Structures are given as C-alpha cells and as structure tokens.
C-alpha cells in the first residue's frame, strides 16, 4: 500500500505542476485586472497545437518550441487586451462595474479559439506532441516515473522561479506589481498602466502556452482540452486567487488529492474531488490557503 501511496503522490505532483502553471496564468490576470479568465484553458490548447506545429511541421528544436509558442500566445493575449478589453473598458459607465462584460469577453475568446482550431481538419483526431525526453522509466525505490515527468516538474519549477525573479527583481516586474496593486497610484507615478495590463495578459498567455506544451505529450491534444482550466481554477481557489505561491501549492495539492481520491475511494471520485475541495475551501477559508483577507467587490 505504501508503494501505491508514494506512486500516487509522485504522479500527483507531476500533474499538479501543470495545474499550477495554468493556475499561475489565471492568477496573474486576476491580480492585474480583477478578471477571471475563462479562456485560460483554450490558450493552453493553442499553446499545445503551436508546439506541434513548431516541432513537427516547422522543424524547430524542442527548446525553441517553448519560445515559439510562448511568443505567439504572448501576442495573442496582448492583442486581446488591446483590441477587445480596452474597448470594453472604454465603454465603462462611472459608478458601474465593467467586470462582468470583461469576463464575458474572455468566454467569447474561448469559443473563438476553440472554433478556429476546429477549422483545421488536423484537429479532428486526437494528437500527441512527442515527449521532450524518451527512454526507459526511472525507478526511485518502487516508484516509477518517466523522464518526461521530470521534465514537466523541472520546467514548471524553472518557469515559477523565472516569474518570481521577474516580479521581484526587475523594474518592469515591479511596475507590473504596482499596476496590479493600485492602478491609479501607478499611473500617478508615471507607469503606463494600459501597456502594463497588456503585458500581463501577454505574460499570462505565454505561461499557459508553456503549460500546453508540457501537457500535450501527457494528456493528448483535442480542441476540447481547454476544460482543464476548471482544475486550474480549483488549484487557484485552494491556494488563494490572489497568491502566486498559493496557486502553485494549490495545483500540486490538487494533483495529489485527485490521485488519493481515486486510490482510497473509487476512480469515479477523481473527477469529483476538485469540486468537493472547491466547496470545502470556499466554505471554510474563502480566501484560500495562502490568500489575503477577503474583499467583497460589487460586480
């Protein structure tokens, strides 16, 4: 039994790292704009397909497809903010929240992306991006993991560290944080708030794309794979929707909880567990494990 628990934990951590990356992208957008990004899953899907395009059709090396996919999705996210959200914000009526309209715009974006991908007959079949590393599985005691699993954890940790360094050590990162904490004050000290917000959308999309490339060899690609965003929402809620470290812990916890639910209860419980956890957290600690105080906002 111990071996099964260890195996379930190890696999849960690997899957959880991907949830954490997607959750990070959601939290980045939420912290900077107060918008829940319902298109987050579709950006993951687009990122995965761009990875396939880069690797299998453009002949790019594996490392380059991360940059290729991240760069294109950065543009996509930034463009969405500039073309759509700016327009929505421009129509805001003083005293009334524009958040609902912005959230609906992200729902629209998710449908546009899914529909656009389906225009390509290539996506009619389940596809798989070849893994970054292939070879014999590695045994740690009785626990067996694929080389790709180590790659997923390693790259996810690298992205998380890079994000931490960017937000903590660079002027741009500090400006972005200032914008997300108090846009008006940021504007007063000369920070270009609109450009910062656009950068946040781009950055979040690029992180989602990296998650998509990590996920594509493991989970297989279909235009509907964006539903995984529900699990990222659960991860963000567990950790706290306004906490970057929280959503990382939340993602990893969720991956492990799902496997434990399947192992100790029934396999059907795997898909139910995230929703039970969401309800439990929202009831007992609405701000999440690492979230700050709850602020009620009128939307």
């Amino acid at each position, binding site marked *: 039994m111990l071996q099964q628990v260890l195996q379930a934990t190890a696999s849960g951590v690997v899957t959880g790292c991907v949830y954490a990356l997607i959750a990070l992208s959601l939290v980045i957008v939420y912290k900077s704009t107060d918008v829940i990004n319902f298109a987050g899953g579709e950006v993951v899907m687009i990122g995965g397909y761009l990875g396939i395009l880069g690797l299998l059709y453009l002949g790019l090396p594996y490392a380059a497809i991360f940059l290729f996919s991240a760069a294109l999705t950065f543009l996509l996210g930034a463009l969405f903010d500039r073309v759509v959200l700016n327009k929505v914000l421009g129509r805001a009526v003083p005293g009334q929240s524009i958040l609902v309209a912005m959230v609906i715009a992200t729902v629209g974006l998710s449908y546009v992306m899914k529909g656009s991908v389906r225009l390509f007959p290539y996506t009619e079949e*389940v596809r798989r991006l070849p893994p970054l590393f292939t070879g014999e599985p590695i045994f740690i005691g009785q626990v067996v993991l694929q080389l790709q699993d180590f790659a997923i954890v390693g790259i996810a940790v690298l992205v998380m560290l890079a994000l931490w360094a960017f937000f903590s050590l660079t002027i741009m990162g500090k400006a972005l944080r200032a914008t997300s904490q108090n846009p008006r004050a940021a504007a007063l000290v000369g920070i270009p708030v609109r450009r910062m917000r656009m950068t946040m959308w781009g950055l979040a999309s690029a992180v989602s794309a990296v998650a998509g490339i990590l996920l594509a060899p493991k989970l297989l690609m279909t235009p509907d794979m964006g539903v995984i965003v529900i699990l990222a929402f659960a991860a963000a809620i567990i950790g706290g929707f306004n906490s970057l470290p929280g959503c990382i812990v939340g993602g990893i916890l969720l991956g492990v909880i*799902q496997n434990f639910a399947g192992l100790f209860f029934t396999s059907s419980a795997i*898909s139910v567990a995230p929703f039970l956890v969401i309800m439990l957290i929202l009831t007992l600690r609405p701000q999440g494990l690492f979230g700050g105080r709850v602020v009620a906002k009128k939307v």
Partner: protein
Amino acid sequence: MLTKHIRHAFIGAAALAVLAGPARAADPGITDTEILIGLFAPMSGPLAAFGFDPLQAAKMWYEEANKKGGIHGRKIKVLIEDDKCNPVEVVSVVKKFITVDKTFIVHGGSCTAPAVAAQEFVTREKVPFVMLNAAGDGAVIPATRYVFGAFGGTQRTVGATIMEFAIKELKGKKIAFIAHDDDFGNSNSTTARAVAQKLGAEVVALERISPRITDVTAPMLKVRAANPDVIISTAYPAPAVLITQKYAEYGMTKTPIIVAVQGIPIPAVFAKNVGNDAALANLYYGSPLNDLTDGPKQQRWIQLYKQYYPDRTPGAFMTYGLPSAMAVTMALEKVGKDLTREKFVDALETLDFDSGVVAGPIAFAKDRRDAHRASVFIKFDGKTHKLMPGTYLWNGKDGM
C-alpha cells in the same frame, strides 16, 4: 313521403361513410415516383469524423438503388442536414424533416445522446427513425416501435463480446475492466460482468473513470494490484491512450490488454499516440466489421466509395454507414408498391441479413431494435493487424 325517402337515403349514405372510414391520405414523403428520406449526421464540428463518410456511404447506397431503377418504380431522394452530434440540433433537424420537408422516414445519427434525444419526437409523430451508425443503447433498448439502430452494435454488445473474447480466447479467469462513469460505460460494464459471471470468470477490478480524466495513475495502480489475467478498456480514444501508456509504465505488458472499438478508431493514430512499442506487444482491439478496415471484404465498399467520391479518401468509419441504408432499401423492397410508414416498420422488424460489411447478421424482431450483436478481435502490434479467429455474439439477454 318523398322527404322520408330522402332522409333515409341521407342516413344510409352517412352510415356507409362511417363504415367506410375517413378517406385515407398517403403518408408524407411518398409519391408514385419518389421516396423522400431525411438523412443527417455530424458533418462538421469535433465529431464529424464519425458521421461524414458514413452519411456519404448511405447516400451512395441510395444512388446505387436508383441506378437499378429505384424501388418498385420509386427513386429515393435524400435531404441532408448536419446535426453536429448535438442533441439540441438533432431534435431541430428531425422536426424540420418531419414537419417542414415531410420526409417519409428519417435516417441518421452517429452519436448516442442525440439519437436518444430524437426518440420522443419520432415516436409521437409515428415516423420511422433508422439510425445511421450510432450505438444508441438508450434509444433501442428497450425496444420502441419506430426507432431502429445500433448497426455497429450497442455498448451492451461491446461489453459482452469483449468479455467473452477475454475469457474464451485469452483464457482469462481474473479480468480487470476499465469503463467510463457515464451511461456508455454503464451499458458495457453491466453486460461484461454478466458474461463474466456466466462463464465463470471474476472481475477483479472494475474502474469507472471520467471521459476527461487527466491522470490514470490511481485506477491503473488498482488494476495492477488486482493482478488480472486480462485487462479490458472500453474508454474513449484519449483515456485509452493514457491507460495503455500507464499499463506499459507499470510493467504489465505480459498481461493482454483489449481496447474496445471506441478507444481505437484509427489504430495507426492510436499507436503513434501511445508512442511505446512495448505497450502494444500484447494488445488486441475489438471491431464490429467483418474484416480489417482495409481487408478484402471491406475493399469492395472502399472501391465503390472511391468511384462515387474520387476526391475523398474514406475515413475509418465509412462502411459503418452502409448497413442502415441497406436495411432501409430492403424494407422498402419488402413492403412493395403499397407503401406506408406502418408497413415499412413491419417490414423492418422482419429483416435478418448479412450486410457484407459487419461481422454477423443485421436483424430485428418485434421486441428487438438493436440491429447488430457481433464483434471480431484483432491483434495489433503497432504495425501489423492479425484477425483473431471467431466472431463473438451477444445473446441479447446477458446484462439485461
């Protein structure tokens, strides 16, 4: 006196009219020269691969019938609609066919849920509904008068035949069964367990998973712990790939694994997605067809399709559209010139024929609306396909 005679004459005429009954109008969609059929399938969207070619194949079959002079002098005319495998769209399409276009029958559907959704309306309107290639368990079991389907077999057939193959051919005594936690999985796992019990085998692990599962670690750990002789998966393509990968990762490749037809629609793509030859060393898959998808028995249909549609390479599901169209033309032939919907249904009920497409017969009865109950099994190592001996049949009772 005269008035009395006139009154009696009117009463007599009225009585005759009552006895004769109302003047009978012909059913909609038929003339002396034409039979109108509403044909539909998913022609766009994510599930188009299941319906586009089958619909084209059915249309081809009708055109073949027309080339031979039609049926009792009537040519078949089809109207085509795209249902996208969406239950709401299907109901709209079927309503349009019946109430606006006034088709004689509706023929279509490649997905179970939409077929079930259309059942209520066609039953109310008393219009025969012949499914194209949907499994449609919920629409054909229990039998209702106007709905005929499962020309590629129901999920009950899938469950029963795959379990019988595991026990009889692979000598399994302890079976692990992985199915989805929906109606689809419920149908196949119920019959599979019944067959296992009947044949004296034990289901040592029954794992019900979500079709959208992202990590199959837990169910596969439980399967490994159960130490089965044979593993069966009736999951959809994406989870089936994850299961097969984990099966190899956890060192279970000496144990045979059987993947149901819905998990491996295109074997070459499945092998590529699994990406591990070792995982395929002991792998079998089920099929309702009478041969390999490109085998000699299927080539006849593939070549005919290429004559009709020279610009299109038929997909793996193309021939699945033929048996239902064959059943329609056979029933029309059987009724004769005096065609009505009720007579057409009566004729369908008596069909029992070899389609030359699927393994085993296509048959209906008064209390049977699922056409096909047979499967064959194929060993697949990623490159070569080997048809295993025997055709496995569900008896229509196990698991009911």
